[in-house]
């Protein structure tokens, strides 16, 4: 019996392998990790005067940062292109305008020459202001070009001293450019304001925030973040949904990104052939401070506005994204009425993405929140005609019914043949 089960399982596996081979997963850009282009990482280091403070494991913050950088430079994966940018490294004066321009590229983003990079880091001495906003803009420029994964790792010990340019908004604007850029922030012994600013920057770009109290934590975390950049990842294609279905962008299977502000609707169109199944999922990122309760709705409608199916989700509390999805298997057309046509016409399905996020009045609504949309078109599912698999039965009741039916059939058959024999005998 076990053998038979194993055989069945093996046949199953073979079938699955065949199926996988025949229908390779969504033959689109979404399936190919953009690993060909080397991922780029820019380390942005605060070299402001406050980095002199001796409060990390007895050493200065600067010394801890330098040591961490040396370790990271040694451990960078070969495929990663690493650059280093500093802020507040040169200007020690009191002029705010000059101090706030003080950010420069210390080591160009590119293939890494370890000794050269280390020498560059060794020259650094804590000096000036903390222009985080301009430094982020500069770093985004350093990383410009290409479709690769980009990452900025910001290491600072204080809040931005260059208001009114809010680094958090700078970060959100950079993220809204759709260049697959993530900013991770690390605060060295941070105070409440620094923490708030750094978490805001991280949140705005889908990055992470770390509070560093010890040397080992710093190098470990930076190394982890640089390694993360090397992981192959599928990057979305930027698109822009329309206000209504007419004129909405036509999407094929793949991964898309868009932006949607509070209460906005975005429409997209997908062509679905008969016998195909449309799978769509959407996630909206809460990249800023939002009110406690929120929701997202994804609807598939016909071009005439009739709703076919919807996916919705609501939530509350702290979150990074809110997501939902839907399936729409389009039935095969009957051959009887359209046997002359060679190819059945595709149906245009309109997808509507809406959200019920809201934010306090102090929060800027533009640019919109990041939307990630995945579209997949696969073969339709097998017919759903019975509650049980193939209409098969299971359990003692089934057995009892079958046995009883067999018994009755046997009895009736026996009586009939007996009656026939006795009729034949009497004749």
């Amino acid at each position, binding site marked *: *019996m076990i053998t038979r089960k194993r055989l069945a399982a093996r046949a199953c596996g073979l079938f699955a392998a065949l199926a996988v081979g025949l229908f390779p997963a969504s033959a689109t850009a979404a399936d190919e990790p953009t690993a060909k282009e080397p991922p780029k990482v820019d380390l942005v280091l605060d070299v402001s005067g406050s980095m002199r403070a001796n409060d990390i494991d007895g050493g200065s913050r600067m010394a801890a940062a330098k040591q961490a950088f040396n370790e990271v430079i040694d451990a960078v994966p070969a495929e990663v292109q690493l650059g280093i940018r500093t802020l507040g490294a040169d200007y020690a004066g009191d002029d705010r305008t000059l101090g706030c321009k003080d950010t420069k590229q210390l080591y160009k983003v590119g293939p890494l020459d370890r000794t050269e990079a280390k020498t560059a880091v060794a020259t650094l001495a804590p000096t000036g202001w903390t222009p985080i906003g301009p430094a982020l803009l500069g770093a985004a420029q350093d990383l410009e070009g290409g479709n690769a994964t980009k990452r900025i790792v910001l290491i600072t010990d204080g809040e931005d001293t260059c208001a009114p340019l809010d680094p958090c908004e700078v970060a959100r604007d950079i993220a809204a450019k759709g260049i697959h850029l993530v900013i991770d922030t690390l605060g060295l012994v941070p105070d409440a304001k620094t923490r708030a600013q750094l978490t805001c920057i991280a949140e705005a770009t889908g990055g992470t925030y770390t509070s560093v109290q010890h040397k080992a934590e710093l190098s470990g975390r930076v190394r982890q973040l640089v390694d993360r950049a090397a992981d192959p990842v599928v990057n979305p294609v930027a698109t822009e949904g329309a206000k209504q279905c007419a004129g909405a962008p036509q999407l094929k299977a793949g991964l898309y990104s868009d932006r949607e502000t509070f209460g906005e609707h975005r429409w997209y169109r997908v062509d679905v052939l008969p016998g195909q199944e449309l799978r769509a*999922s959407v996630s909206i990122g809460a990249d800023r401070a939002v009110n406690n309760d929120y929701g997202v709705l994804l609807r598939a409608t016909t071009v005439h506005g009739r709703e076919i199916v919807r996916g919705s989700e609501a939530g509350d509390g702290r979150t990074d994204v809110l997501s939902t999805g839907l399936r729409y298997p389009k039935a095969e057309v009957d051959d009887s009425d359209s046997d002359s046509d060679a190819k059945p016409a595709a149906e245009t399905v309109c997808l509507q993405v809406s959200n019920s996020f809201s934010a306090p009045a102090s929060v800027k609504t533009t640019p919109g929140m990041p939307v990630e949309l*995945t579209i997949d078109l696969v073969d339709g599912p*097998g017919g759903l005609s019975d509650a049980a698999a193939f209409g098969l039965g299971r359990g003692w009741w089934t*057995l009892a019914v079958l046995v009883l039916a*067999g018994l009755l059939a046997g009895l009736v*058959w026996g009586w009939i043949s007996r009656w026939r024999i006795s009729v034949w*005998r009497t004749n």
Partner: protein
Amino acid sequence: MRTVRTLTAGLLAAAAALAVAGTAAGTAAADTPSPSATPGKDGAAAEAAAPTEAGTSFRTAAPFRPGQKATAGASSGDYLYWVLPVDAQQRVTVKATVTLPESAARHGASTWQLDVYDGLRRRQACTYGTQSRAAAREAASVELSCTLRTVRAGAEPWANDPLPGSYYVRLTVVDLPEEDLGLPVRAAVEADVHEEGGAFAVDGALAKPLVAGTVTGSLREPEDGWSGGWWSDRWLWTAAGGVLGALAGIFGYSLTRGTGRPSRVPPGA
């Protein structure tokens, strides 16, 4: 004499068939895979080790298989994502353990939460398990778990039933004092699979499991591939029922024949 022989044979066959059905159901139910034990002989598929890093979004979720233990170092406040394949008729329990930072560095209680999403990024309900738990300030770790509904091979498009495919696990802190953001934590996630057998075998099946295109690598599917959803112990039950029915038919027929000569036939005939 003949009747007796038929009867015994029938009973024996019935008993055998029942035993077959019974053991099949038994093995199917107890058939929890243990991928860690056997590295598999055929190919690269089984070689992939459990991830030691977590992803930070649906797109970057780190894939692992049921039975493996995925670990990650992170900062409190990070959203950690993993993804695992679950096949039809399986009921999966996801367990997470978070090792919290030393209590001296913390300022208060924190609440951790485990969420599971299906391949379409739809949130899946936990039927039982502590999905969200508050850790006191002095607690060293938090344990969370979530048992999903049994995965069905197919469902109507309007239903939110769990379907075979990728399942995303998201682990994060949902409530903590501001000062405690960004402290180092360690997280470990495991998934146990329980085969529920044919009781949850439904008609109709997806042509392709709900595996997102962003999940790559060999860990995107179960160790021995997707089942396709056609096999269940219902085949055995029904076949056994058919055999028993036939035997019962023979038995019933033989009852009407009586023993020996028919009584109504005159002795001289």
